[in-house]
């Protein structure tokens, strides 16, 4: 039997070629691919809540509803004047400005820089934050000068029966 050439010619079993069960690699190629695909699946599934949130936003379901709140009477606010109020919470100070006979704008008046109160300068026709001289456009609430970079949160107002009501807060969109 010694003339038979049935010896293993050399040590064939190594890391990538192995037929011994106990030397089986813990992670073969297929296991690696399964891990990759599984991780991708986990990430995909775990991102679904963001999709739900996005859908809520797109469908307007994320808008908070606040009970409408009376700010002032139309008679007590002359054109070009402003008045302070708080909306939606008692600590969310806000400002209402009457720009014309029928046009009112209202903003939460904490400056978007460092939350100093923003005032309405009637003779200059702009909103000014006294702390660092930030200025805001009264029509839109966008910053026009100084350190603030974000617009003031706008408050929707409605005129009913000779009184001005705050009905909601415009969502901030970067």
């Amino acid at each position, binding site marked *: *039997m010694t003339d*038979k050439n*049935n*010896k*293993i010619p050399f040590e*064939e079993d190594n890391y990538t*070629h*192995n*037929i*011994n*069960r*106990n030397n*089986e690699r813990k992670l073969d190629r*297929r296991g690696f691919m399964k891990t990759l695909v599984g991780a991708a699946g986990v990430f995909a599934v775990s991102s679904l809540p963001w999709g739900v949130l996005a859908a809520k936003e797109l469908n307007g379901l994320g808008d908070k509803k606040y009970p409408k709140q009376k700010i002032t009477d139309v008679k007590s606010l002359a054109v070009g004047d402003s008045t302070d109020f708080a909306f939606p919470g008692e600590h969310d100070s806000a400002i209402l400005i009457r720009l014309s006979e029928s046009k009112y704008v209202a903003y939460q008046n904490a400056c978007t820089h460092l939350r100093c109160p923003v005032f309405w300068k009637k003779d200059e026709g702009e909103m000014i934050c006294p702390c660092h001289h930030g200025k805001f456009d009264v029509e839109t609430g966008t910053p026009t000068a100084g350190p603030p970079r974000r617009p003031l949160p706008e408050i929707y107002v409605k005129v009913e029966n000779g009184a001005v009501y705050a009905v909601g807060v415009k969502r901030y969109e970067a």
Partner: protein
Amino acid sequence: MKKRLYLELENCIGCRSCLAACTQCGGHEERNRNYVYDVNPLVNRQTMPLMCLHCVNPACARSCPAQAIQIHETGAVLSALVEKCIGCQNCTIACPYGIPKFDTEQNLMYKCDLCIDRTKDGIPPMCASVCPSNTIQWLTEEEIDAKQSQFNLDNDKWVTSMPLEGETNVRVNLPGILQGVTKLF
């Protein structure tokens, strides 16, 4: 207590119990993985069982491009791993005994794995359990040596598994008339 499968071929009576047992064994899906051959067909009625001999250096596993055939720590050569086998049938060609069978439907090789779920716990494989004529036995090394000492051949011809292709974990008793001259398989 390591035991081996031992085939005492001249005991075989051709009852095919081993085939039936293999067929009905759990996990075999109604397919047997061993064979019963006529030794001299149309000459006499002598039969012999043959199952995988579980080579120490198995040609089937060596030929497998996907390394789907693995050698268990007990020495048993396992059936093709379902998740690895690519159905190339290299093993069926490589095996000198023609043991691996091929399932064309599943595109999968299947072969005797010495009932590894049983033998790994020291329980004899199904075929050995049912063999009524003591052809297929489950013996320790000492018992196999004792078998050899029963034969007083003064020509040192009594061998187990030596005229075969290589060393096997299953020992075969080769009847005297067949030693060395006639190849069985």
